[in-house]
């Protein structure tokens, strides 16, 4: 009964196998000319002389990484103060409730839908991608961060409150450093996520390697080139994942699992020179 309503039949499955066979035959072997040939039809202008630098794979990948980087940076800058406002242990209940609802609102729509909205507003291109992923990053990262802030021990916060410090100083100087390792890890995770997702939002015209992928799958029907792009994306994600792992190790002692005091290197409140 259900399958009838949804229009799922055995014939559909049979057709799918046939299509999969065609797709398979047209995909293999992957055509890696997408890494070497200049893509003259690129969405944004490429000024490099080398053809490989302006190829669909490299130009698209660099654009995707740029979009992901900017979205993560802007998302982090916006989500940090919002997460402090949303944390129950740092803000009055009325403020944390309103901020949580705002962050939940940003998460209602996936970045793909945000990208569609911004493509309509600003036209196709990386700007729509950056804005879409920034909004999604704020909603997602904000939630992860306020949960990390709420997880810090109450004792340093109580010592700070007894001193009579205002809420922003309690959050900035006591809660944030205590949660710093978790927050840095979340930012790196979000960057990885945004790179993976950057290839998806390109499908609706919001820039990056996904835009090339969409054209190879749709207009050009070059599945061998599309497969080559998918392999390039996979390799790039694996490399970025390893780099991210290395950075995270710098903040966490792998033997003792004790967090290292690295925050001072970012915010030089007290340095060796001063003592």
């Amino acid at each position, binding site marked *: 009964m259900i399958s009838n309503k949804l229009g799922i039949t055995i014939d559909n499955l049979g057709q799918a196998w046939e299509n999969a066979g065609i797709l398979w035959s047209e995909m293999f072997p992957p055509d890696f000319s997408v890494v070497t040939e200049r893509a003259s039809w690129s969405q944004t202008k490429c000024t490099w002389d080398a053809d490989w630098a302006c190829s669909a794979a490299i130009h698209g990948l660099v654009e995707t990484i740029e979009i992901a980087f900017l979205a993560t940076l802007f998302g982090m800058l916006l989500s940090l103060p919002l997460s402090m406002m949303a944390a129950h242990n740092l803000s009055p209940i009325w403020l944390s409730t309103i901020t949580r609802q705002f962050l939940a609102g940003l998460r209602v729509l996936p970045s793909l839908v945000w990208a569609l909205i911004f493509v309509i507003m600003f036209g196709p291109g990386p700007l729509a991608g950056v804005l879409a992923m920034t909004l999604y990053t704020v909603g997602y990262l904000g939630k992860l961060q306020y949960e990390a802030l709420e997880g810090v*021990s109450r*004792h*340093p*916060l*109580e*010592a*700070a*409150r*007894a*001193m*009579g*410090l205002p809420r922003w*100083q309690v959050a900035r*100087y*006591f809660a944030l*450093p*205590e949660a*710093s*390792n978790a927050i840095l890890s979340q930012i790196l995770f979000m960057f990885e996520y945004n790179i993976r997702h950057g290839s998806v939002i390109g499908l609706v015209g919001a820039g990056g390697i996904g835009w090339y992928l969409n054209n190879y799958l749709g207009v050009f029907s070059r599945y061998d080139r599309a497969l080559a792009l998918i392999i390039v994306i996979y390799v790039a994600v694996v490399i970025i994942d390893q780099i991210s792992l290395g950075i995270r190790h710098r903040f966490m002692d792998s033997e003792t699992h*004790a*967090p*290292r*005091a690295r*925050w*001072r290197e970012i*915010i*030089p*409140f*007290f340095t*060796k020179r*001063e*003592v």
Partner: protein
Amino acid sequence: MPAPVLSIRQAVIGFEKDNPLLVDVNLDIHPGEIIGVIGRSGIGKSTLLRTIAGLLPPISGDLDVPSAKGEIGYIPQRLGLINHQNVGYNVMMGALARAPFWQTLFSLPGIELRESARSAIEAVGLSDKVLDSISQLSGGQQQRVAIARSMVQQPTLLLADECLGELDSETAKEIIELIQKLAKENNIAIIIVDHNPVRVATFCDRVLQVKGTHIEEVNV
């Protein structure tokens, strides 16, 4: 005699109005005095300190406590240090209450505050540990950091909850000397909660015992 730093009259302390932990609390503490509070676990000693620190409202009664920013120092049971940070950062946190707004906004403490942090770290004997993370220190060293933070803060009233904890007698003796120095040199009133009545009697000017729901002064 100078005016008391802390004055409590007819206070009822606890979480539930119908089931208070402490009733009829009357207490005056003067500058430079060290008061020890003893009593069995869970009787309300820490709740008394948290109420004086302004972290819990009293159920009823009058509490005349220092109200200006930075006048109350509080060392919670687990010291309240930022474990992910180094000794220098933690000690500097005591200066936040005294620092001008722009210095706290940009994390740029002035020379005077940095000097006071340096002196405090030297006074507690941790000059060689300034850049060590709190999680790398021993229990005794962490107590010293908490005391150095209070030295930099320069409160008029310091509340220390079980800050001697389970330290060995030698380390506890060193910490007690630091507390006495802090009280006498800076004229700070100190309330220290401890579970060891004999130890408290050796360095406190007065000892208060929590019995049932009442506090009474005792000679140990």
